[in-house]
Structures are given as C-alpha cells and as structure tokens.
C-alpha cells in the first residue's frame, strides 16, 4: 500500500534537517516557490485532499477562499491542538517528521499569501513542542524561514504558539481567539476565517496531517494523490487506534481500507481474551457503532457515514465486552461538560446537566425518566450553538442509547422492578 505521510517514517535521521533533505525534503517547497500561488492551490485542489482534523473540507478549496488584494495581511494557523479523545496522530507526525510538517505549512503559507504563520501547539505536548521549536530554529538559521526563501523573493515568519489546556482551541475559530490572546471561545461564522479570521484578517486554519501531505502532493502531482483511495475520499489517512486491540498504534492506510483489516491485520486483532463490542471510528465526538457494523465498513468519509457514523479525526476507539457503556458515556459526558467554553447556554447547561444525569445512571441512582430527559437535552443542544462541541456530546448520547439501550435500562429502576428485584 502506498504511504504518503509515513513514506519516510523510521528512516535514520529523517527528523533532522539534513536527513529530511536526504530523502528529497524541500524539493516540493522549491518547486512551489517557482510556481504561481494559484497554481499551487490548483495542484492541491486536484489532489482532492480533505481536511484531516475532522471536518473533511477540501483543503485546496479552503485556500482558494482567501480574498485577493484586500491590502490586509493574511495569516496561516497550523492546528496542532490535538485534543479529540482517541486521537494521537499529529503528535507522531511532529515528533518523527517535523520538517515534513513544516515544509507543508510553508507551502501553504506561500499558496495563500501569508507572511506570518502560527503553529498552535497543544499545551500538554512536550516532545512535539520541543521538536517543532528546534526545527523552526533550524529553518530560521538555514534561511528557509525568513527573508527571500530559496532566492524566491518571498518572505515568511513562523512562530510556535503554545496552548494552555482547552479542548475548544482545536475548533478553528476558538484557536484563532487563543492566538489573539483571548479565552479560546469560538466565533460565529460567517464571516469565515478565510475572509475575516485572526486579527480580523484573512486566515486559513489547517490541521497538521493535512499540511503534512502537501509536500508529497507537490512532488508527485495532485493526480497521483487523487489516484489513491476512493472516488470521493482521495489519498491516505492516519488512524490512531486505541482501546481493546493487541497492537494499538498510528497506522496510515489508503482511504477505503476495510476497518476489519485495520483491526485484524495492522492492530493484530482484539486484545488477548477480549471480545469486541463497539467501535467509535473518528474520535469521541462521533457516533459509536456496534463492532460488527464497524468491522463491515470501509474507512472513507462516505462509507463511514453510510454506516451511521463519521470518519472525523480517524481516532478509532475499540471497546470490548468487559466495558460498561453507561460508564464510558459518563466519562465522555464529564469531558464535554469540562470542556464547554460556556458562551452558549444550550452547551453550557446541556453538557453539565447531561453529565450529571449520566453519572447518576452509571452510579445506579438514575430515575426511570432520565433517558428521555437526556434524549431531549441532546436534541435541544444540537445545532443551537456557535460551534460543534454541544453536538459532539449529543451524538455519543444518541448513538450509545440507540445501540446499547439495554445496558442503560438495566441500571434504571423501572427495569429493576420488572425483574422483580
């Protein structure tokens, strides 16, 4: 299977400037600098690359939204705020292939006309931050970040901006607020960041994994990338698999790869002695699926959606029979309640109220009407807020109830009475 992001993973010294150069690094950036910015955008459009942070919006199309000749500075924000539970792929890219990530970011900055880029890195990350900071320093010393990059006449600067512990800063407008020195509260769209983002200037926010694919696309051509994967989901994707499998890890596969093969081959099947019960395929915010449904689907945007969930960030969380679904949902509820930024009432109140009810059910103190109340909360917090955090709690509630209702009912009094206890 063709590797795009992990083509050079594990090669000796590939995390150094010289090592990255030795495997053909910076050829793509040099090539891009000889092209017109709009030609770079066209090449990325032709690749069909879609945003790998979770939303799946076509990257080249997003770049094309930056208005021309506004006279305002343009900014690029690299979203390295990897915080979606179950997701740990960008960390691997940054720690093992920092110059590939940075090369992709510089190409993006050139394509959109940005002179300043913010590498927004999650506050908890240690190694990733040190590696990226060191790589940025090296690129400054080598003149790859600075004035007249590779003699092209193009100037660029890039700063590493460290977050400080807030899941919501992974949402692109929350990230922008955080770059601006504010609380990481999302902003209403429109205006979309491409038109009016950081410092009220055109801003593009891209996930690390999306940008990391760009050097390969420029080197091999957008059409070569587009030939990988499926008709609508092009290229490859990283999947970070966690939970009850023998070999959890981060794996690159072509879009459309069967989930069963990912779990059985790459991950070595279920953890010893465990039977699979459920899989959350795209990070904690997407709907959970029964294991048999998930194992029967392919890993591309359309197939996962047809199976009733979303590809999201590619954080595959594998759940075995020994786990209590009410307990897992209570854990997720507590997370979203903790991370709600508080500016929209349906989210602030809905996540807190929902979390309290889920805890009460899990503790065995639930009331018979609690599930109905939770379903109403989930409905009222969907689509009524500035960002998707509220929906990200509603989707787990609805899907856990849909597929594993019996586990919740077993903890509630009506069922207890029916059993005659």
């Amino acid at each position, binding site marked *: 299977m063709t590797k795009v992001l992990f083509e050079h993973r594990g090669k000796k010294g590939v995390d150094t400037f010289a090592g990255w150069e030795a495997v053909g690094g910076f050829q793509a950036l040099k090539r891009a600098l000889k092209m017109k910015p709009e030609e770079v955008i066209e090449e990325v459009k032709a690749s069909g690359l879609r945003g790998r942070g979770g939303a799946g919006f076509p990257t080249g199309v997003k770049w094309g939204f930056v208005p021309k000749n506004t006279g305002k*500075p343009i900014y690029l924000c690299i979203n390295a705020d*990897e*915080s*979606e*539970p*179950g*997701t*740990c792929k*960008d*960390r691997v890219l940054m720690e093992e292939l920092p110059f590939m990530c940075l090369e992709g970011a510089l190409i993006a900055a050139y394509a959109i006309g940005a002179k*300043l880029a913010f590498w927004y890195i*999650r*506050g*908890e*990350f*240690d*190694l990733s931050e040190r590696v990226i900071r060191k790589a940025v320093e090296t690129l400054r010393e080598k003149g790859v970040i600075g004035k007249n990059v590779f003699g092209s006449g193009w100037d660029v*600067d890039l*700063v590493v*901006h*460290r*977050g*400080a*512990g*807030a*899941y919501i800063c992974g949402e692109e407008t929350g990230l922008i607020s*955080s*770059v*601006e*020195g*504010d*609380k*990481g509260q999302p902003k209403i769209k429109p205006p979309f960041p491409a038109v009016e983002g*950081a*410092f009220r*200037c055109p801003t593009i926010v891209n996930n690390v994994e999306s940008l990391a694919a760009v050097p390969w696309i420029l080197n091999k051509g957008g059409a070569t990338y587009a030939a990988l994967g499926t008709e609508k989901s092009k290229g490859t994707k990283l999947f*970070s*698999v*966690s*939970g*009850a499998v023998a070999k*959890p*890890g*981060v794996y690159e596969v072509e879009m459309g790869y069967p989930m069963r093969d990912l779990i059985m081959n790459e991950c070595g099947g279920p953890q010893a002695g465990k039977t699979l019960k459920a899989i*959350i395929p795209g990070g*904690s915010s997407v709907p959970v699926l029964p294991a048999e449904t998930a194992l029967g689907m392919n890993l591309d945007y359309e197939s996962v959606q047809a199976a009733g969930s979303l590809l999201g960030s590619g*954080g595959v*969380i*594998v*759940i*075995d029979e020994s*786990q209590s679904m009410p*307990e*897992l949902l209570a*854990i*997720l509820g507590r*997370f979203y309640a*903790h*991370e709600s*930024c508080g500016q929209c009432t349906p989210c602030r109140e809905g996540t807190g109220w929902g979390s309290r009810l889920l805890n009460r059910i899990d503790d065995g103190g639930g009331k018979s009407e609690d599930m109905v109340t939770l379903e109403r909360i989930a409905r009222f917090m969907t689509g009524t807020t500035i960002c998707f955090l509220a929906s990200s709690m509603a989707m787990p509630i609805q899907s856990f109830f849909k597929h594993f209702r019996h586990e919740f009912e077993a903890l509630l009094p009506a069922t207890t009475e029916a059993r005659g206890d």
Partner: protein
Amino acid sequence: MQPDIQDQAVIDADELMAKTAGFKLSAEREAMVDDLQSRYPNKKATLLPLLWAIQEQEGWISREWMAYAARRCEVPLSHVLGVVTFYTMYHQKPVGKYHVQVCRNISCHIRGATGIIDAVERKLGLQHGGVSACGKWSLEHVECLAGCSWAPVMQINRTLHENLSPDQAVKILDELE
C-alpha cells in the same frame, strides 16, 4: 478545582498595578517576550506565551504577576484574569515540585486508567486537585493527553509516561523521591 474563599477576595486593580510596577522576568525571558512582540501583530496576542514564561519562572501565576502581564500586553487586568482562569494549565496557586496528571478519558479508561489513578492516589495520599503538605507532589485527573495509542498514560511535569501498569506508575513516583 473550586477556588477557595481567600482566592475570591476583592482585587484592587489599581493597587496591584502600582505595587507591581517594577516587576520584570529574567533577562532571557524578557528578551524572548520582546522578540515575540516584534513578530506578533499586536501585544495582546503575546499574552499566552507571556503567561507561560511567568509560570516557568515562578511555578504559578499570582495576581501580582497577572498585573505585570496586563501591563506588558497592554490589556486590562480583568482580561488577564479571564484568560488565566479559562485555561486549565495555568496554575493560580503553587503546585507540587512534581505535578502528576493522570488521564481519565475513554481510551486510557479502557486500558485500565482506574487502576493507575487508585495506585497513584494511594501512593501520594492525595486526591484530585490535592497538593502534599511538603510541597513535593500535586495530583490532577486530566482529560485526554493524546497518548491514546499508548494508554494508559500519566504526565509528570512535562514528561509523558506511557503503557503503564499500576506497579510501574508507583515505581516511577518512587524513583522521583
């Protein structure tokens, strides 16, 4: 973590600003902040990195240092207070020399985080949010640390420890004693 009553005392911003007029970070950190302020579009945007520099030097961010940050970034003190209290990693009171964060989210839970949390709590004699009397340890249960494929994980200061068993977690703490 709920702030205690003392933390909620009324702040006299003018008094704090006057009192901290002479505050300065180390020369190296001041130079770092100057460098950032020359690159960022405005001074306010350098608030997060400035707060990190304060915390790295002082171990936590007192009201006095918040006043310093307000002056340095040209924002009201109330703005700094809002930002510090929004982000969970800025400490508003001293933490232990070793700040232990154990992940309690879904992927770590499936791989046995409960056992890690129990073992660490027993070992340190602390609960979530606790700081030991000697000032050596503090403990927090935290949400996902993006170590899901190497779960369960625990982070001590900035070092992430992966694929833990309860015994290994305790051993790591023992070695720090």
